[in-house]
């Protein structure tokens, strides 16, 4: 277990192995500091888990890595390119090499399942219709939803919507795949299915994956590298096993799901008794 300024040997990577390199990133929303000197790397062909309590900026980090937001300070390099130097057209070109699974699926509500998965192919390629059909059905088969091809997004359960979104995310065979809280709100069967799918995508297709989640058990089962975020920076990095064995209080609190520890469970508030007695104020 290591503090961010002393990276673990397991996370040290040769430059050509690094797909994403976040260096000295600071980011604030109005007066609220989200990141302060954030450093991490994502290695090629591996699953990198980014963990942390809710509100710690995990989704914001994904936005920075995908050029949806720009850091106030520091650099984010993806595929060796500094995102801040890219034009809008170059960012769009780079995104063709990426896929992203949104927390809610973000399926296009006016298209059925088949057309949702076919959407990137229709927009970026001139493939003949039979080939589009074959590719879409192959991806839907991979996520177990070939039979749901004609359903509309409103007819899908949360788990099904996320699997369709995963099929859409991989239909262009991306090199890099982002997962934003892929396990939230799923039943155990869907959750297990998503875990296996993420692992299979990585093993079968060699896709570099970045999984943002606060589900320790699921993420530990599939991640090769893990980062724990807290207080605007990486507080621990290493293989999931190393994080589990860490003696750092903040890591132990998160891995054990304890309310007591350096990360406050309660939002800052006046003293409890005083608040209960002050009937005129909320």
């Amino acid at each position, binding site marked *: 277990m290591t503090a961010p300024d002393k990276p673990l040997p397991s996370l040290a990577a040769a430059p050509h192995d690094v797909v994403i390199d976040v260096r000295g990133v600071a980011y604030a929303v109005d007066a609220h500091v989200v990141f302060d000197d954030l450093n991490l790397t994502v290695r090629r062909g591996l699953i990198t888990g980014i963990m942390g309590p809710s509100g710690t900026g995990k989704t914001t980090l994904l936005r920075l890595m*995908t050029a*949806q937001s720009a850091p106030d300070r520091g650099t984010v390099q993806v595929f060796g390119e500094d995102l801040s130097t890219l034009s809008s057209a170059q960012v*769009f*070109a780079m*995104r*063709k090499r*990426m*896929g*992203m699974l*949104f*927390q*809610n699926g*973000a*399926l*296009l*509500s006016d298209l059925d399942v088949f057309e949702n998965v076919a*959407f*990137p192919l229709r*927009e*970026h390629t001139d493939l003949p219709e039979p080939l589009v059909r074959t590719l879409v059905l192959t991806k839907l088969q991979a996520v177990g939803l070939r039979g749901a091809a004609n359903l509309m997004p409103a007819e899908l359960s949360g788990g099904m919507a996320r699997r369709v*979104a995963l099929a*859409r995310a991989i239909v262009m065979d991306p090199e890099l795949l982002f997962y934003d809280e892929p396990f939230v709100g799923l039943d155990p069967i869907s959750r297990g299915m998503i875990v296996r799918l993420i692992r299979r995508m990585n093993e079968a297709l060699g896709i570099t994956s970045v999984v943002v989640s606060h589900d320790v058990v699921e993420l530990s089962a599939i991640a090769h590298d893990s980062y724990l975020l807290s207080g605007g920076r990486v507080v621990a990095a290493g293989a999931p096993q190393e994080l589990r064995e860490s003696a750092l209080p903040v890591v132990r609190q998160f891995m054990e799901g304890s309310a007591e520890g350096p990360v406050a469970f309660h939002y800052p508030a006046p003293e409890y008794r005083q608040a209960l007695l002050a009937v005129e104020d909320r």
Partner: protein
Amino acid sequence: MNTALTEVLFTRNLRKLGAITVFCFRMLAQCAPALGRPALIINQIYNAGARSLIIIMLSGLFVGMVLALQGFDLLQRFGSEDALGIAAALALLKELTPVITALLFAGRAGTSLTSEIGLMRATDQLTAMRMMAVDPLRYVAAPRFMGGVIAMPLLAAVFSIVGLFGAQLVGVQMMGVDRGSFWSQMQGAVGLKDVMEGVVKSLVFGFACSLIAVYEGYYAEPTAAGVGLATTRTVVASSVLILLLDYVLTACFL
């Protein structure tokens, strides 16, 4: 205090006007690429136009009927009931049709556009498109905007036709105005310029209403309340702008 408040309001509105202008140019730049997917535009013409037909036809009918009643009452005082056809046609073509059609369009199609795009934003669909390297301005905003601009004059034409039928129904069938006078006087007095005034107004109103509806949806706060507020702003801003533009355009045509 009042000066400060005025300055704040002025600055805020000026900033919003600037934002809409920038959005407008960015979206117009995406209209040509969007033409490559005509099915999207046709779909939006159907959504904004065909789905508004019932309300437009019903309103047109009653407006034409009321116009005939009021017109007959006024004209018979001067013994000029035969001029009812001209009065109804000019009032409809030049003024009532474009304005009422646009107001109905803002309430029916404009709110639908804003809430649809706002919900797409709230459910990350616009972000998902960007992440798939697809510009939502091209795929979502431009087709809806063009659909609205094309649908408005078509709806106005339907409004005028049904309105004239309503006027004829009341004037000729109920009030006893001579059918020949009604139509022939209308044919003789209504020129291409009068028709064009209505067409130009419809196009301008269609542009303004569609732009506001798409802009408000595109930048709606991604919450239920935010989408609701954006929808309200669409109706209010469109209605005021329609009446303002109507005055300006009428002054230009006179």
